[in-house]
């Protein structure tokens, strides 16, 4: 169609040309006739004077055609050629842009998905979480989950609360499949899933009838992920699963896009989400038990109702509950937005980080503007010539902008590539408590934003150079002047920018350096055990299955068979592993300890098998570990700290102590190295090791040592467990190095973020300093040439210039170090065994920044002093 119109227009123009040509020739002929020429001859001469009509026709038609696309294509071609002529400049510009845009994209998509975006539920703004407050307990538990009876009261009487739903997390063991498996199940009120916008992909969701108090609730709805794990059977509705030994009917499967609200505030740590759901269907005793607070409550406020109104209405109900409860406990309820609860404390740092990224991007843009200015000054001559021969000003502006947009486009593309990679790396390292992390990915919305940012940055750093280039004075340039158009910003302004940039870089790098030092200290920490090739897995035995003696026999048998696996060098069990949290805290006492129960020291009580110390590489400082010969005797191994706590100045070996407030005395036979139970950054714990046969634990962690890769043992281990403990699921399969890695995951994530930031900052600052120095030297080309011509040696001149350029960097360096020291208080809480003023770290950072600054100043100074003389002598 467009071509057709073009064709018609072309024919019309051609017609017009014919007419104009004929008129012209006629007028010329008439002009000649009037001067007395023979008409035939006049016509001939007129035609000759007019020239070749066909050629002019073609040319004119060509000129008449409008061609924005060709113009743009030509601009781009010219731009690409120009950029390729200066490959170093182009590469540096694209790299810094990619860094800036890439990090902005990564942090924007994280912040967007975690903080900015509404939760993926219908009318998410009205969703709230309701929790209980018991005034008598607020110092220990500021808020509590809801009591079932209270929830029912709320639901019945609170009008402004709108719709209320409740749920509770459980874990169940599924048997009847290849291996018993531990599943995460949620009991939900029938209205909860529809309220959150969940749809059934197969079958149905729960009916109100199934949720009645005391109802027979043997139906389950599967989550999409779990359904796929089971083999994605489309005919699964109507089948049964065996959960905790009882049959459960599958009534439906959730659609894949549903995300269950997953946050610590709602009872569960963030993870991959629940596997399956069953109706809440309160038991009668659950609704009448006054002391149990275990249910998470989500509400959708009535239209137009504010949280405050719901809260005051709930307060009235709570007063009544307090009265009927006998007044011993004072109840209240708090209402908070679900979004706020889910995002939790992650919101503020993420938004701060986003702000920091924006500042970095701004610095990138200003730096590139300087680089481009330096570049254009070098091209002043070419531009001046083009203006002189008639190139329009607008055209030059457009050309500069085209170039900066080309750079921005390339940088943006690189940035998005970098972001896809960076985001994946970041999420892999993300600690488990980063909320909503399963929702994070690069999507259209994020890409559109980063494209807009790219365009904006491109226009931003192109505008100033474009404006300057529009003012080239051709005469000035041709005469051999600077040819740079309007004079640049004052030199002191530029120096200030260099100083500020250097200072910011130093602050950021100091923080990064201190975190690196912290991490190094952390990884070199005396763990008290060896993170060797050891496989660890949990066996949660069901309660009350066997007697102590039965279970001890089972464990003996199991360990014997595990040790018999080829490749396994040692196997043991324990009730808990270091770094995974304090376990079974109880009071311990010496024999004849005069202290009362409340005054006694607390200890972690661990039940372990004899091989535990050798398998985990926990060294015994003195004495011996327990062995099979100790069966039937009361023996105990203490950690160094436990021993020092009980007997500060005496030899504990051979003495007797009471491990736990309800236990009998046991003889101390060994002292083991200290370990940290609560976490890698927590102080060493007080640990008391008891042989497992004295009280075989319910939750057992197996540790299996092998010669090679620990994971390779897993199939053989599973085969043994399948026959030794067929009804017990295997959960939390990990390795000892994995345990350490998990314990350091949060810090590694933090370090990764800072490394990415600090690394970008130093590169960006280097480019910035280089660009600014190159720019001002380009402006001073004539002066430098003159100095050389007057006999200054290039080497000493270069040194002078370098020192001059380095001065603002040094000022920034000192300011940055002062800033880093001032920030020490903020940083201190993030550091581990390193002081915020650590001289080695700060000196290293200073040295790095100084070296980079020196290089960034030296290079342009070198180029300016070596290349300057000749053109000046030529008269350029």
């Amino acid at each position: 169609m467009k071509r057709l119109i073009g064709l018609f227009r072309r024919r019309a123009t051609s017609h017009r040309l014919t007419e104009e040509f004929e008129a012209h020739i006629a007028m010329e002929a008439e002009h000649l006739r009037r001067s007395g020429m023979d008409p035939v001859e006049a016509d001939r001469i007129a035609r000759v004077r007019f020239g070749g009509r066909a050629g002019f026709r073609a040319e004119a038609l060509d000129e008449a055609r409008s061609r924005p696309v060709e113009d743009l294509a030509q601009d781009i071609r010219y731009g690409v050629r120009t950029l390729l002529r200066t490959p170093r400049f182009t590469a540096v510009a694209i790299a810094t842009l990619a860094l800036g845009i890439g990090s902005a994209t990564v942090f924007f998509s994280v912040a967007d998905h975690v903080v900015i975006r509404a939760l993926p539920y219908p009318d998410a703004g009205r969703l709230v979480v309701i929790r209980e407050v018991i005034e008598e307990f607020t110092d220990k538990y500021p808020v509590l989950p809801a009591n079932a009876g209270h929830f029912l009261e709320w639901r019945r009487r609170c009008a402004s609360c709108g719709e209320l739903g409740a749920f509770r997390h459980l874990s169940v063991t599924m048997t009847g499949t290849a291996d018993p498996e531990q599943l995460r199940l949620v009991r939900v009120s029938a209205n909860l899933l529809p309220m959150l916008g969940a749809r059934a992909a197969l079958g149905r969701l729960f009916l109100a009838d199934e949720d009645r108090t005391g109802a027979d609730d043997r139906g389950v709805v599967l989550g999409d992920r779990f359904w796929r794990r089971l083999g994605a059977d489309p005919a699964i509705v109507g089948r049964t699963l065996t959960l905790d030994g009882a049959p459960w009917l599958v009534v439906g499967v959730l659609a894949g896009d549903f995300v269950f609200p997953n946050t610590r505030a709602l009872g569960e740590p963030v993870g991959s989400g629940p596997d399956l759901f069953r109706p809440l269907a309160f038991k009668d005793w659950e609704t009448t038990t006054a002391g149990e607070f275990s249910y998470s409550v989500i509400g959708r406020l009535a239209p137009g109702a504010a949280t405050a109104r719901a809260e005051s209405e709930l307060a009235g109900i709570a007063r009544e509950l307090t009265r009927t409860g006998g007044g011993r406990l004072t109840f209240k309820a708090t209402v908070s937005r679900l979004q706020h609860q889910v995002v939790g404390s992650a919101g503020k740092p993420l938004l701060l980080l986003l702000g920091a990224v924006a500042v970095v991007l701004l610095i990138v843009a200003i730096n590139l503007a300087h680089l481009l200015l330096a570049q254009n000054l070098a091209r002043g001559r070419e531009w001046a010539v083009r203006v002189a021969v008639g190139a329009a000003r607008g055209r030059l502006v457009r050309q500069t902008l085209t170039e900066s947009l080309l750079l921005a486009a390339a940088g943006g593309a690189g940035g998005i590539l970098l972001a896809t990679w960076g985001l994946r790396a970041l999420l892999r390292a993300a600690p488990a408590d980063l909320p909503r992390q399963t929702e994070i990915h690069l999507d259209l919305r994020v890409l559109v934003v980063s494209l807009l940012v790219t365009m904006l940055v491109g226009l931003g750093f192109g505008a100033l150079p474009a404006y300057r280039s529009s003012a080239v004075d051709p005469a000035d340039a041709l005469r051999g002047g600077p040819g740079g158009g309007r004079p640049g910003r004052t030199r002191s302004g530029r120096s200030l920018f260099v100083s500020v940039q250097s200072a910011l870089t130093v602050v950021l790098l100091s923080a990064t350096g201190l975190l690196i030092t912290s991490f190094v200290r952390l990884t070199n920490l005396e763990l008290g055990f060896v993170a060797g090739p050891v496989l660890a897995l949990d066996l949660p035995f069901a309660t009350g299955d066997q007697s102590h003696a039965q279970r001890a026999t089972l464990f003996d048998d199991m360990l014997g068979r595990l040790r018999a696996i080829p490749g396994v060098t040692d196997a043991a069990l324990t009730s808990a592993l270091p770094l995974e949290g304090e376990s079974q805290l109880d009071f311990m006492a010496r024999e004849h300890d005069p202290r009362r129960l409340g005054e006694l020291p607390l200890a972690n009580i661990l039940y372990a098998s004899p091989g535990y110390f050798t398998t985990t590489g926990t060294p015994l400082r003195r004495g011996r570990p327990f062995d099979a010969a100790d069966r039937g005797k009361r023996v105990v191994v203490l950690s160094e700290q436990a021993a020092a706590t009980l007997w500060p100045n005496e030899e504990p070996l051979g003495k007797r102590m009471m491990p736990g407030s309800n236990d009998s005395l046991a003889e101390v036979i060994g002292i083991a190295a200290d370990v940290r139970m609560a976490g890698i950054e927590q102080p060493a714990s007080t640990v008391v090791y008891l042989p497992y046969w004295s009280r075989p634990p319910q939750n057992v962690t197996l540790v299996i040592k092998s010669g090679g890769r620990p994971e390779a043992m897993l199939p053989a281990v599973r085969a043994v467990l399948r026959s030794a403990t067929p009804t017990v699921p295997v959960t939390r399969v990990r390795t000892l190095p994995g345990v350490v890695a998990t314990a350091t995951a949060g810090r590694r994530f933090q370090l990764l973020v800072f490394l990415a930031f600090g690394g970008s900052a130093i590169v960006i600052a280097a480019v910035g300093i280089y660009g600014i120095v190159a720019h001002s030297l380009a402006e001073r080309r004539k002066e430098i040439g003159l100095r050389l011509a007057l006999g200054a040696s290039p080497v000493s001149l270069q040194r002078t210039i370098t020192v001059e350029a380095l001065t603002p960097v040094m000022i920034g360096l000192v300011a940055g170090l002062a800033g880093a020291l001032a920030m020490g208080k903020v940083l201190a809480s993030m550091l581990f065994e390193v002081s915020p003023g650590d001289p080695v770290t700060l000196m290293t950072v200073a040295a790095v920044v100084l070296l980079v600054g020196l290089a960034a100043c030296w290079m342009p100074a070198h180029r300016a002093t070596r290349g300057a003389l000749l053109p000046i002598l030529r008269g350029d």
Partner: protein
Amino acid sequence: MAAESRLDVLQGTLDLLVLKILHLGPMHGWGIADRLRWGSEEVLQIGQGSLYPALYRLERQGLVRSGWETSDNNRRARYYSLTAKGKQRLTAEREAWQRMSRAVDLVLRMSV
């Protein structure tokens, strides 16, 4: 606009001269050629027809506009006139030209 980057001095000069002539008032092609003849015969040495590509270019750039009218001796002719944009361009081009000649002058004097 594309043409401008390829502009050689000659073409740039022709455009400038055409704009200058139209500045005096609307004129048809032959009239423009007739006035050019006085000033610089050599520009049109290659033929009066070479005026038309220039006119069409200026028209596309929005610097001149045209329309059919009847001439003094009752002939149908297409008249060209300067647009506001054309007037601006003329001023700019004239300044550029003056700078250029000043520059050329300076260069010439330097080399002496």
